[in-house]
């Protein structure tokens, strides 16, 4: 009997964005790299996202946000992750996030922030290198 491990990734859309094109492109790229992607759909609360990550026992959470609410929603999400003892989960973010906010986001535990135009290959490599299995 051989174990069969896969990287499981939650792609989550916190807040009130009206579209999820970017999130779907990321999901598709990671899927094509052989990972299992769980998608939350639009307009999720931090509680929904973290609880979903817990039930799905993912190795990675990718947060996609366009609305500008990242400074409120991301700290809340990171707090909940710590509260539930899920510190081993890799968290990255993408979407419309100003350069000057990135340092603060990294300080609260978000490993990397990817802006528009990031090649999907970069993302795949990042997840493969940093996800704990």
């Amino acid at each position, binding site marked *: *009997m*051989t*174990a*069969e*491990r*896969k990287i499981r990734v939650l792609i989550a859309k916190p807040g009130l964005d009206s579209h999820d094109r970017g999130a779907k492109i990321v*999901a*598709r790229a*990671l*899927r*094509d*790299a*052989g*990972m*299992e*992607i*769980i*998608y*939350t*759909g639009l307009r*999720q*609360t931090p*509680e*929904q996202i973290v*609880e*979903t990550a*817990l*039930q*799905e*026992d993912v190795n990675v959470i990718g947060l996609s946000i366009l609305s500008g609410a990242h400074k409120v929603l991301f700290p809340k999400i990171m707090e909940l992750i710590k509260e*539930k*003892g*899920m510190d081993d989960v890799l968290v990255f973010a993408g979407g419309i996030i100003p350069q000057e906010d990135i340092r603060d986001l990294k300080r609260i535990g978000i490993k990397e922030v990817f802006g528009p135009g990031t090649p999907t290959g970069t993302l795949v490599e990042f997840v493969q290198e940093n996800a704990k299995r």
Partner: protein
Amino acid sequence: MGQVAQLVQGVLRRNRRSIAKAITVIENNEPEAPKIVAQLFQKTGKAHVIGITGPTGSGKSTLIEKLIRELRKSGKTVGVIAVDPTSPFTGGAFLGDRVRMQEHSTDEGVFIRSMANRNATGGLSRATKDVIRILDASGKDVIIVETVGAGQSEVEIVKVSNTVIVVLAPGLGDDIQAIKAGIMEIGDIFVVNKADRQNANKTWSEVQAMLEMNTEEKSWKPSVLKTKALTGEGIAELLARIEEHREYLKKGAFEVHRKGEAETELVEAIKQKIVESIIADLRHTGEWEKLKQKILTKEADPYSVADEVLKKLVHG
């Protein structure tokens, strides 16, 4: 406490993290998986397992969302296992069923897990049965299993469910499709979803006619219901019918079902154990490579080689 004991205790205490971790161990086929199943086995068998199958896009996930809502109203706890396909080309999967169910994600009485089928055939993943056991042992009253979008022959769901619901939608095929073998034979309840669509009545009557053609004498007569999952219409009737089926099972059919299930599972388990141990043995002695070589060089065909292996086993 070891990892297994910790997970088992956690599952029994309904700790959500433990349930999630235990499922991963089972799904990944880790060495601890059989130990977890063994230790939880006695605590299983209480949940009512509802299998939901049907073509892609017929509305299975949306229907499940509405079922969860109604079940929660009546105080029942619910586990959901939603299976989506793994790519045979990359091994990756996009699991999108729970998008429709996210409203229930923070409800303590609901546990939803998405699973890739990891290229298993039949509409489920290899580990589905044991994942049902985890949710069962964690005290869920009802466990809903959603298959991958099923065409015709994905009938594995029968082996793991107490009640099978086949969800259809109008416009997917005519009465010739309805008479074909496969998923049209496995429903305890049939649902024509999207009942507000054109041709819904036609689809309904085709399925009805198909069921009336049943020549086999069965004590349970499957029926066809109409629903609009998006608005929740017909859900109460569906739940009532599910409850009727559960009552019917309790009157004896359940025992027959369980016996059949025990037999299938035992056969599968023995096959797996024996095959694994024989192959491991052959690999260990180096015989495996020699046997393979015989087939490669056309010295013997695979069946003859298998016969040879069997003879050696029986006669030592």
